[in-house]
Each structure stands twice: as structure tokens, then as C-alpha cells.
């Protein structure tokens, strides 16, 4: 029974991804026919030569949405289980803000994404910012036992780094400032082929590495003390969790901006819907559900002719889900 309902859920999500993916290629300011898109994807040509660029750009941003949504969602899932709090996520804990600060230092300093060196520089800065915040948070966690209080500390990191970024604006020129502000609204578009290659490789490799955490995550639902007693090396697990979630969230943030809500809402929703308690199942389901939500959000953005910022759409979809989960949590009177 449980297995069947999980398989049905996976089927529905994958079907949804296919439909949205296809619609994202066909629809937009320039509508296209299925036959033409098929033809172009197969390497053929279309009547209008400009169409191949349009399809390529739509294809690229759809791939970015699928990987970015998945990455944020599994990063959120792992953090929620580790902190045993359904409100944890890369955004809430200040990890995205840490990555933003790293990006701000480099971008407001005048470096652009265009060159490979600039690319790597910004990625590295984002990762350093994200992982630094996580280490700081873990250090504070030694003194704070209550995980809600810890979340508040994470939020404060977010405000603090935002303030630091505002200070950085004082020295930045207008072009750099505008570039940073536009980046901050979030978007899955605008990656060129080489950036897409870097992004895709990093996200896929890191997401696969997260499967190393299957047994630790299964055990951590009972808390670190019990996890240690069933053979989990808590210290090394903690390190892996910081690295994987921090780097995943940082890479997405560097390329797509600080995308909110997917990292909290998707794992919450999937943990309610999925029956299996094995993270070997939950991890991939959360990934594809994150892909679906991100793709859906991008579709809405595109249907508005790119006038709605991505973060506006994810907030409108994500915030109600989070509120619903909080209400449900209180009804069941579950203490965390």
C-alpha cells in the first residue's frame, strides 16, 4: 500500500515536470509548434533561424530551473532533519545570505560573470560565504539547545549580512549595484553554455553525493544521541551535511540569485505526502518535487513576459504551504 502510493506520487511529479518542461519550450512571447521544437531539439532547422536561439534559451532556463529547484529542496530537507525543525532551510538559516554576501563582495567589486575566472571566483566566494554561516551557526548551536532559537539566530545572520551588503553598496558604482539588485530578484535565465555546463555538473555530482547521507538522515530523525547509538558517526556526518547543503545552496544562489521558499516548502510538503521513511526514497522525491515547483514558478514568470520576479512567484506559492504545515503541526500538538 505504502509503496504503491509513493510510486503514484513519483509518477505524478515526473508527469508534471514533463508537461511543464514541454510547455516552457512551446509557450511564451513567441509561441511555437511542437513539430518545430522537436525538429530543433533533434538538431534540425526551423523556418525561422531565430527560433533555434529562442528554443535554446528556453531549454537552458528549464534545465537550470529543474536542477536549481531540486538542489534547494534537498538542501532544505537535509537541514530540516539535521536541525529537527520543519522551518529550517537554506534561506531561513542565513546560508543563502552568506552566499549573497560572498557574491556581493565580488560583484560590487566589479568582477563580471563573463570570464571563466570570474565565474569560479564568484562561485568560490558564494561557497565560502554559505559554509562560513553554517559553521558559525553550528558554533552557536553549542550554546543554544532549542532549535527554534537557533532559527532566530539564523534569521539574524541573514539581516546582518544584508546590512553588510548595504554597506558595500556605498563603495560600488551604479552599474555594479544595478547588476547586484537584479541578481537579487532571482532568475533561472541568462546562463551561457559554459556556465550551464559548470552548473549542471556541480549540482548533479553534489546531489548524488547526498546519497551518502541516507543512513545518517534515517537515524537523525531520532536525534543525535540515538543516531550515535545506531552506528552513525555524528561528527563526520555533521561536516558532510554542512559541506553538501552549503555548497548546493551556494551554487544555486550564485547563478540564480537568492531564491526563496523552495528550500523550506518542498521538503515540508513531501515529508507529509511520502509514506516511506527511508531517505533513499525521500531524497530523490524531494529533488523532483523541487524541480517541479521551480519549473512551475519559472513558467509563471515567463507567462508574465518576465515582468514578475522569480522570488515573488516562489513566495506566493511557498508561503501558504509553509503556513499550512505550521498549522498542521500545531493541530497534532507535535513538539520539536
Amino acid at each position, binding site marked *: 500500500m505504502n509503496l504503491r502510493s509513493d510510486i503514484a506520487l513519483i509518477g505524478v511529479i515526473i508527469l508534471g515536470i514533463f508537461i511543464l518542461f514541454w510547455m516552457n519550450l512551446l509557450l511564451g512571447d513567441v509561441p511555437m509548434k511542437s513539430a518545430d521544437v522537436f525538429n530543433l531539439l533533434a538538431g534540425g532547422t526551423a523556418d525561422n533561424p531565430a527560433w533555434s536561439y529562442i528554443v535554446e534559451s528556453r531549454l537552458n532556463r528549464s534545465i537550470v530551473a529543474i536542477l536549481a529547484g531540486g538542489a534547494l529542496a534537498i538542501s532544505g530537507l537535509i537541514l530540516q532533519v539535521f536541525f529537527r525543525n520543519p522551518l529550517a532551510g537554506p534561506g531561513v538559516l542565513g546560508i543563502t545570505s552568506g552566499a549573497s554576501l560572498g557574491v556581493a563582495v565580488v560583484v560590487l567589486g566589479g568582477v563580471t560573470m563573463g570570464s571563466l575566472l570570474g565565474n569560479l571566483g564568484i562561485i568560490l566566494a558564494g561557497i565560502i560565504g554559505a559554509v562560513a554561516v553554517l559553521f558559525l551557526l553550528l558554533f552557536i548551536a553549542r550554546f543554544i539547545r532549542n532549535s527554534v532559537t537557533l532559527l532566530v539566530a539564523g534569521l539574524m545572520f541573514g539581516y546582518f549580512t544584508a546590512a553588510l551588503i548595504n554597506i558595500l553598496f556605498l563603495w560600488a558604482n551604479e552599474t555594479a549595484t544595478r547588476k547586484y539588485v537584479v541578481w537579487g530578484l532571482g532568475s533561472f535565465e541568462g546562463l551561457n553554455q559554459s556556465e550551464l555546463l559548470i552548473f549542471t555538473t556541480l549540482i548533479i555530482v553534489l546531489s548524488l553525493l547526498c546519497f551518502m547521507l541516507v543512513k545518517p538522515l534515517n537515524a537523525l530523525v531520532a536525534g543525535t544521541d540515538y543516531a550515535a*547509538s545506531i552506528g*552513525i558517526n555524528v561528527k563526520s556526518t555533521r561536516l558532510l551535511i554542512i559541506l553538501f547543503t552549503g555548497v548546493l545552496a551556494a551554487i544555486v544562489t550564485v547563478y540564480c540569485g537568492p531564491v526563496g521558499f523552495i528550500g523550506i516548502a518542498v521538503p515540508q510538503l513531501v515529508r507529509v505526502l511520502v509514506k516511506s521513511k527511508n531517505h533513499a526514497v525521500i531524497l530523490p522525491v524531494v529533488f523532483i518535487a523541487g524541480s517541479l515547483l521551480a519549473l512551475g514558478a519559472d513558467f509563471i514568470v515567463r507567462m508574465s513576459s518576465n515582468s514578475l520576479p522569480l522570488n515573488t512567484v516562489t513566495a506566493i506559492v511557498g508561503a501558504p504551504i509553509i503556513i499550512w504545515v505550521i498549522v498542521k503541526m500545531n493541530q497534532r500538538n507535535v513538539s520539536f
Partner: protein
Amino acid sequence: MLAFKQLEIRAGARHLFAASSIHLRNGIVALVGRNGTGKSTLLKTIMGLHRDFSGEILVDGKSLDSYKPADLAKEIAIVYSKSNIFGSHSGRDVLMLGRLPYQNAFAKETAVDREQVNRIIELLQLEKFIDQEFSVLSDGEKQLIMIGRAVVQDTKIILLDEPAAFLDLVNRHQLMRVLQEIAKSTEKLILFSTHQMDVLPKVCQSVLLIDQNELRLIEDPTTFITTIYKSFGMDNLETDEV
């Protein structure tokens, strides 16, 4: 099964207690001592989670240091006084966590795992609430499930850190009955810390007492209570509800 040799346990700058040579075999053993004497620290040390000690702890004849966490999990299981689970796990899901040390990297459940879980559900009579969600169960039911989880782990030693701390009188009796049942049907060493003295002579083969910074083994059930009370400096038994 579990032995201490010239053991001396510290917590930071504080010297907690020492034990010259103690050997525990299978059966039920209580760990008694006043608050702050180091009962929980001793259990943590045996779990390999507290490293601030000198001397030797032997688990099944081998030094504690020679075990990797994954191997120690097949030798020792533990039950804490309070547990909560993050997620909508059923009691059965929680029992299955005890099989984790035996599963592959993807935590695949085998027929043996399921069989073991079913056997323990039957042994401890957990059928009534095992398929309900863990978080809605009473403290007593939760604790029985956590004990079941420890038995499912299939270890030679089960430690319990004040397992009855949050239980009412009826559940405390139930808990002791279950521990006796486990001791009778398996060859395990069950070591539990407690402040409850009345049950000791009936239930335990021996008592570990932490007193004046020393860990001692009391082996004669008729002297359990008098020895403990004397060590606590309470000679007048009449004024106490024992």
C-alpha cells in the same frame, strides 16, 4: 560481557569516580547514585561518546577503543528517558530504526529485518499501538517502543538511562515486567540507571552503586537497599517511603 579495569572517569576538571575491577554478566543490573555522581556519564562512556577517562572498558572481551561506531552499534543499544521522532513515523517505523546497523548504504529493509521487528512486537506485546503515529502515543507507550527498538538492534548489552523518569506508577511496573521478560528470553545484559529503590531486590541480579567517587558492585540482593541507604547517609529507613 561488560568489564571495567582501573577505570577512572572525569568530566572536565572534575574527577567523577573510579572503579578497580568490575565484571558484569548477563541479567538485569541497576545503576544507582545521587544526582550528579556520573550515572549518565558512565552510560555515555560505555557508548563511546565520552572520551574523558583512563583505564579500560571491555565490551565482549575487546577494548572499547577497538570498535568502530558501526560495530559498537551491534554490541550495545541504549534507551534514553525521553525520545521524540522528527516525522510522522509509526511505532513500527521506529522499531525498524534498530535494524539500521545491519542495513546497506541505502538502508534497504530485508525479510530478516521485518521478521525481527515482528518477533519483538509479539514478545513485548506492542500490537495494540505499534501502527499508530509515534508522536501521538503516551510517554509509557513511547518508552515501550524505544525499548523494543533497542531489542530489535540485537545487541548483547542494552543500556537504559533513567527509563522510568517520566512514567507513572503503572507504567513503571510495566517497564520492569518488560525488562524481566527480555532478560528471561534473551541472554542480554540490561543495565539501567534509576532512583527507584523498591524494585531492586526483586528485579536485579546486582547493583552498581556510585558512592564517594567510587563505583562498586553489590551482588547480594538482600543487602541492596541497606547498603545504598547507608552510602547516602540515610540510616533511618522508617521515615522514608521505600
